[in-house]
């Protein structure tokens, strides 16, 4: 079944599910898959650190990378996922043109993700991040295949 993940949300699923998320601008799209258990999840996190709005983070951990990623892993473990088998891919984290520091949310999202993964000894298998484009992700949980689409062009990640 196709399931759409909106901004600041996360969904997990298994064989037969296709997880879709649209309009990744500066947001991070994180796709995690355990091929043996055939379970996976897709997180669409908006901002790097929950400390900017703790009240929001308490209501919805998926708005932030630092709270959303651990919660996603926790849920995947509950449905049989194992850390050692997880295949992790990232998409999004775009930026406007120029190098204004005020608008580097995408880069900050990416940095926080990398730190989290590094601390937990997890490798990033593939990524399609940065630039000015907006991305849509299709994540097939039967196969683990990730398709990124932008401006009508699709490619496999």
């Amino acid at each position: 079944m196709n399931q759409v993940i909106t901004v600041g949300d996360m969904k997990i699923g298994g064989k037969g599910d296709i997880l879709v998320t649209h309009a990744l601008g500066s947001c991070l799209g994180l796709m995690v898959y355990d091929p043996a258990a055939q379970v996976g999840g897709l997180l669409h996190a908006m901002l790097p650190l929950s400390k900017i709005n703790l009240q929001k983070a308490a209501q919805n951990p998926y708005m932030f990378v630092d709270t959303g990623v651990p919660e996603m892993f926790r849920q995947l473990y509950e449905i049989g996922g194992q850390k050692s088998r997880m295949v992790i891919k990232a998409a999004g984290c775009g930026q406007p043109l120029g190098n204004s520091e005020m608008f580097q949310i995408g880069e900050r999202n990416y940095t926080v993700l990398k730190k989290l993964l590094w601390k937990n000894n997890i490798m990033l298998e593939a990524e399609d991040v940065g630039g000015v484009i907006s991305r849509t992700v299709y994540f097939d949980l039967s196969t683990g295949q990730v398709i990124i689409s932008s401006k009508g062009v699709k490619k496999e990640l």
Partner: protein
Amino acid sequence: MKSTIFSLIEKDVSAFPSMPGAAAKLLKLLRNPDSSTAEVENILRCEPGLTANILKMTNSAYFGLTNRVGSIRQAMVLLGWKRLYQLVIASCVSAMMDKPVPGYDLPAGELWRHSIAVSAAAEGLAKELQLSGTDEIFTAGLLHDVGKMILGKFVEQDLVKIDFETYHNLSFEKVEQDILGTDHAEVGARILEKWRLPAEMIAAVRWHHEPENAPSISQMGDVVHVADFISLMIGVGVGREGLQYEPSKAVTRRLGIHIGHIEKIASQTLEWVSDLTASFK
């Protein structure tokens, strides 16, 4: 070629719908401190659709009124005349801006969500930065991209050129200028002129992608410029051009904005958008 396109665009601007007569009258009344509540009520008495829209929006969680408002008189007392002015405009443009926008690849509803997001984020930023004199910021945010409704068709015809390699690092309004001889900000400003909206609001729309070229500095324009990026970055109404616009460093400097302000407003914007758009359904 460019001049032919330009004259076609001009034609579309003049053919663009005017403000409905009742709305135009209301806006005039609401800007005049000598008008009375009764005059406003008189006009709305013959406009059940507009009245219903205004009341629905008045009761949106965004405005934070505790009791349900059932009459225009109450709405005017509780929200104030400036809000009512904004709601009259919002109610007139909502149906129009809810349509899909070709060229920019915005499906139905996305231009409207983007506009609402920029309105709310701009108000949020103005409050966060404790700016004053920004009463019209909500409407400026709401209408900043209205020009896309005319320019979309022309952008679509020239997509092949627009996707050309040379244009990849150019802020999108400059791509539009280069190929079409004008951009969606200018076209939007022309629509606002046609609607006889206030000059500062028109300027905020006209310069929302190039605030540094504006003849005079406007905090309202500056805040709309920043709020636009917030909405695009969080993926609300982000179209074919993605994030291909360049933020002005002069603007963030003179507003004294930090990344913390931007992230804080971003974290609240989606809730504001759903509160405001829910009231239209």
